[in-house]
């Protein structure tokens, strides 16, 4: 479904079939974009594999400076295809007390905070690593833009769009829209289970958050 299709559906379901009056096109577009950001953050359903050129002797890198659409690492491999194993700081310290300045082939990495990566060991020369990471969605701007989220979940983005548009009203009107948020979460839970099983099977380094029924119930007024 392209952006204009989703906007039309949101408008129709908000009783604005003839065109935007109360809910502007820009507002509905923003709502759909928020929906896809939230769905991707909850499910890690978008991933990309890219090359990362690391200068010689580099230990630490903020990955958002390398990949602006970074969410979290899933897998890092070296130029031979060998996996660079994720480790904790305690493990690296026990392995090698001088690990932050230890020349050699990179065999492990530590991930800290939102985007901070430390490599052990550090190649003397420049090296190219292959990084698979959970990717933030590209903004939907043009009417013909299509979300990279699997198409069968696009109706759930429409649901979220309705919920978000009604936030401005508050009170009972807003409460009526919570069923759309519940529907959105149903899609998230389904997609998240698939991605979690897939990531576990692929031995990825991160899996998506497990959205519980309690999480959902708290937000949709105990309707679960």
């Amino acid at each position: 479904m392209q952006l204009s299709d989703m906007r039309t559906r949101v408008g129709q379901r908000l009783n604005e079939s003839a065109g935007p009056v109360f809910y502007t096109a820009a507002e509905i577009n923003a709502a759909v974009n928020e929906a896809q950001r939230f769905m991707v953050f909850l499910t890690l359903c978008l991933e990309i594999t890219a090359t990362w050129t690391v200068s010689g002797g580099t230990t630490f890198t903020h990955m958002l400076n390398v990949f602006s659409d970074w969410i979290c690492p899933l897998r890092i491999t070296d130029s031979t295809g060998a996996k660079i194993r994720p480790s904790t700081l305690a493990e690296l310290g026990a392995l090698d007390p001088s690990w932050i300045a230890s020349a050699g082939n990179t065999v492990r990495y530590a991930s800290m905070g939102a985007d901070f990566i430390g490599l052990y060991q550090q190649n003397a020369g420049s090296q190219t690593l292959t990084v698979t990471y959970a990717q933030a969605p590209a903004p939907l701007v043009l009417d013909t833009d299509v979300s990279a989220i699997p198409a069968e979940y696009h109706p759930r983005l429409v649901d979220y769009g309705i919920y978000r548009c009604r936030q401005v009203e508050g009170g009972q009107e807003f409460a009526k829209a919570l069923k759309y948020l519940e529907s959105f979460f149903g899609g998230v839970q389904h997609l998240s289970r698939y991605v979690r099983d897939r990531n576990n099977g692929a031995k990825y380094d991160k899996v998506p958050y497990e959205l519980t029924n309690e999480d959902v119930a708290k937000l949709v007024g105990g309707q679960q």
Partner: protein
Amino acid sequence: MDTANSVSDVLYRLGFQSSGDIALSTSWVTVAELYQWADEAAQKIAYASGVFCTADASLTAIASTAEYALPASNVFTLATFLNGVVLRMTAVRDLWALDATWPATSGPATRASLDASGVGTITLYPVPTVGGTLTQIAEEYAPTIALATSTVALPTVLQDFFSYAMMAGARGKESDAFMPEVAQHFEDRMSLYESVIQHLYGPG
């Protein structure tokens, strides 16, 4: 990520027609306040989940000096290195157990303690006989989020975390637009974001 995007994203939902509308002197909330709520949200995930990690090499250890003030932005030190060699993080009770006169023992530093002295300090053990660069892998808090400094080093998918922080603050503020039940919902949305942030980026 630029929290200015969050400001433009919440205007309509707070009942404003445009950025000019919220700038009116009669407005019940200001853009400066929206940034304050975003800033407070950033500081919360800084200490709760340690999202802003970095390697800080601003401290220099000096021979015969054991105690150093941590950088002002330090939230928690995850690991410390003196001249590239890791110092074992050790609680002061263990230093006492290890060495009854530990404050006076000198030699090449092998351990570091975050509770041997006041909050915001790090103490080396033994008292170092050799100085050098004291590198720390540390959780920090973000620079203040405000109108002129609205960017924050986080993934773009967290834009809406800041949007909900702004709206939770605005709708919870005592004003003609006070909507406590909606503010509570927005705070619950933030809680869910915080749970996912903890899962993806938190320690461990």
